[in-house]
């Protein structure tokens, strides 16, 4: 999988544009939306942009960057995915997840894949996210990756590829739901021509999956969302999920463990908790086993999980499977565990622990992206073409001194989408896609669309919200307008057969009698006019 790029690739390749074909004509699928936007015009879009900002501010739909809370910039132009394209993405994501679930069950269990030598044992054990503490913890419904957000990009040929796997705490799903609401609120016209698959089922699906993961002997499981607190960058999302699932949002200090049971402190005494959807990192989860200085976690929760009294979702130690050094092996894992060919290919990636590949990378560093293998959020990433000489030299030193901690990929120019830029103009900007998937043990539900992140500065390829990226409402479009719905008369259910009780008039609307009594109105007016006349003096 680590084929060296042909030298012909030296010349910059034009990115795939999702709206305009290479010969300059707009794709038919985008015509309706673009017509609407054109008719609104640049000045109209500026007005809508202000309304959008007001809406996001008012609703407090924000993420925290540094010390500041700010709205995640949502672009007004939706991103369109046709149902055929989506089918492939959905199937590919599900396939990849099944393989990664099998891999996690394997490395935290029998270790078959290591014994077979498919992946070097050292690569797994040296992963900072491989937690021996999690070895042998079984999961009630064999799910470890309850929620995932696999990042995809579209390469120069328009093919979707996996950029990275996020199997720990992928965030951003709240923005998917909020973006849809926001766009329908400020720009309803663009929806007119299409039938867009709804996204609002997500919280319900997530809650079902979390309940399905509860210890089997619990009939009515209590689910909580565990947040690090209000200063976390994704705190808005934590509140969003708790509110939309109708469960408590807790902090570590609200929970405690006793006799391997986790309780939350409530005004009516301790209440047992069965499923913790935690949005804090592994390291902070349990000071007894992991970082002893953590004040965000719950001492003893890992023992409780091992005893099968509580389920932690996502499972502890998932990070070993989304480690960027494991990433190049995922296609192999798909073949190994499932006996299938990968539906979604990887981006070419160099394993820097291999001397030949390392040499190649160091020789072409200015055309590579170098990423720390255990980080996310775009932190520590060195983008070859735009890096300074000093940055490149530093990257080379880092790669040579600790090759395990980095991977390198040829710069992929991912696709562009029309985006509103300054002055209400529309221009192409680079986008990626994070489809969110929820695994309840029986089915994997992939939220139709997912989060499209857009790099707002011209030419930029970094879409992370922590690095100034924005987002786009992403539509999965069902081709053909659906009129197959039954007509009004036909959707009656059992309720419609109930006779209305006598004396009830469904169409009656009570109104205040005097407010519209013309006679009184007329005469009151005349009084007023008579008064005017008196004051002004009457002629004759």
């Amino acid at each position, binding site marked *: 999988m680590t084929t060296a790029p042909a030298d012909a690739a030296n010349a910059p390749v034009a990115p795939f544009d999702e709206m305009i074909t290479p010969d300059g004509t707009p794709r038919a699928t985008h015509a309706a939306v673009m017509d609407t936007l054109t008719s609104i015009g640049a000045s109209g879009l500026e007005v809508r942009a202000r309304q959008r900002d007001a809406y996001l501010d008012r609703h407090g739909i924000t993420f925290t960057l540094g010390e500041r809370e700010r709205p995640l910039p949502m672009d007004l132009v939706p991103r369109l995915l046709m149902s055929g394209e989506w089918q492939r993405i959905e199937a590919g994501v599900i396939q990849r997840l099944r393989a990664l679930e099998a891999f996690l069950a394997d490395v935290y269990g029998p270790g078959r894949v290591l014994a077979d030598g498919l992946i070097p044992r050292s690569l797994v054990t040296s992963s900072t996210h491989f937690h021996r503490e999690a070895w042998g913890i079984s999961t009630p419904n064999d799910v470890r990756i309850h929620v995932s957000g696999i990042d995809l990009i579209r390469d120069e040929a328009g093919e979707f590829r996996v950029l990275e796997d996020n199997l720990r705490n992928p965030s951003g799903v709240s923005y998917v739901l909020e973006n849809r609401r926001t766009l329908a609120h400020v720009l309803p016209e663009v929806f007119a021509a299409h039938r867009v698959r709804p996204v609002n089922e997500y919280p319900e699906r997530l809650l079902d999956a979390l309940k399905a993961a509860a210890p089997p002997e619990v009939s009515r499981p209590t689910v909580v969302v565990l947040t690090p607190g209000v200063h976390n960058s994704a705190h808005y999302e934590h509140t969003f999920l708790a509110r939309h699932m*109708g469960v408590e949002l807790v902090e570590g200090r609200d929970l405690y463990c006793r006799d391997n049971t986790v309780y939350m402190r409530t005004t009516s005494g301790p209440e047992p908790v069965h499923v913790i959807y935690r949005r804090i990192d592994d390291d902070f989860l349990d000071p007894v086993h992991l970082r002893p200085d953590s004040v965000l976690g719950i001492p003893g929760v890992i023992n409780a999980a091992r005893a099968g009294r509580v389920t932690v979702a996502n499972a502890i130690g998932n990070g070993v499977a989304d480690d960027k050094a494991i990433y190049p092996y995922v296609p192999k894992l798909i073949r190994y565990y499932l006996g299938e060919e990968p539906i979604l290919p990887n981006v070419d990636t160099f394993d820097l622990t291999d001397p030949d590949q390392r040499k190649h990378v160091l020789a072409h560093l200015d055309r590579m992206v170098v990423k720390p293998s255990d980080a996310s959020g775009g932190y520590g990433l060195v983008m070859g073409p735009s890096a300074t000489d000093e940055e490149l030299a530093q990257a080379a030193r880092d790669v040579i001194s600790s090759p395990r901690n980095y991977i390198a990929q040829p710069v992929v120019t991912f696709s562009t989408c029309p985006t509103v830029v300054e002055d209400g103009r529309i221009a192409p900007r680079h986008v990626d896609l994070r489809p969110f998937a929820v695994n309840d043990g029986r089915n994997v539900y992939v939220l139709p669309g997912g989060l499209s992140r857009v790099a707002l500065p011209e030419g930029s390829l970094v879409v992370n919200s922590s690095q100034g990226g924005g987002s786009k409402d992403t539509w999965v479009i069902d081709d053909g307008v*659906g009129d197959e719905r039954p007509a009004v008369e036909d959707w009656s259910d059992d*309720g419609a057969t109930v006779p209305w009780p006598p004396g009830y008039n469904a169409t009656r609307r009570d109104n205040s009698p005097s*407010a519209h009594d013309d006679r009184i109105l007329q005469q009151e007016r005349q009084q007023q006019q008579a008064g005017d006349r008196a004051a002004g003096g009457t002629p004759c």
Partner: protein
Amino acid sequence: MLSRIAESFYWLGRYIERAEATVRLLAEHHQLLVEDQSVPHATGCAVLLEALSMPDTGVDTPHELVRVLVGSEIDPSTIAGAVSAARSNARAIRESLSQDTFEALNSAHLALSRGIAFAASPGVALHNVLERLLVVNGVVDWTMPRDEAYHFMVLGRELERIDMVGRLLSIRHDLLWPSSGPAATLRAAGGLSPFLRSGMAITGADARRFLVLDTTFPRSMRVCAADAEEAVRGLQRRGASDSSLLLREVGMLRSELEYARTPTAREIEQFVDEARGAAQRAGDEVNRAFFRQHGTVVWSH
């Protein structure tokens, strides 16, 4: 107090509630039409108009629906009409209202009559109207003495609320939009978060039961009936005579909802219809007992 004054307070309560409930319902319904196009727009518009007792004039776009329902001052079934009617009643009792109440209501009226409805996006415009109506309710809540006038206003508000929840439930979002409909119904009554916190999964039947029978949510019919009953008792304490039939009407509704067995999906419809019927009868009785005691005096020669 004067019957005429009492009547204006009663209708002030009703129209403010009608305007607010219609705005919420329209905003939510509009969002649903735009976001989830599985239902043809003509159908989606028709069901809302029918629920609000408006003539169906062939409206078939969400934008047109907003225009029709924001409406004009002459039709009190529309938002502008309800706000305008509320303001007419407020003008008639301006001396008994706090200045803040009148101002808040007046600014809602002015915003509507100056064409806020024609702002570019309906969601934004509706939100502005809703915000002003919330101010009216807030000001009333913290400036109005709990006297006879207040009880008349609350009585009007609660009877209208029962009627509006009934209209909301008659739309059957849950059947039209099986996936997003139940949540939309709850949201249109401001009840999504309270519902979810009660630990139920969103199903059409549970959402509807919640809006009829919940014990704590202020827009459930049951709580409305209890508040209406409390308002009538308040009037009685202040010496309103001839209110026993009215008390019977709201009290029976309240106890029926309070002691009901958990109804099946089918039975909910009966509850809804009965509640609306009781609210209508209570409205007639308010009219008879307090505002029209002696009929119209006719002079004969």
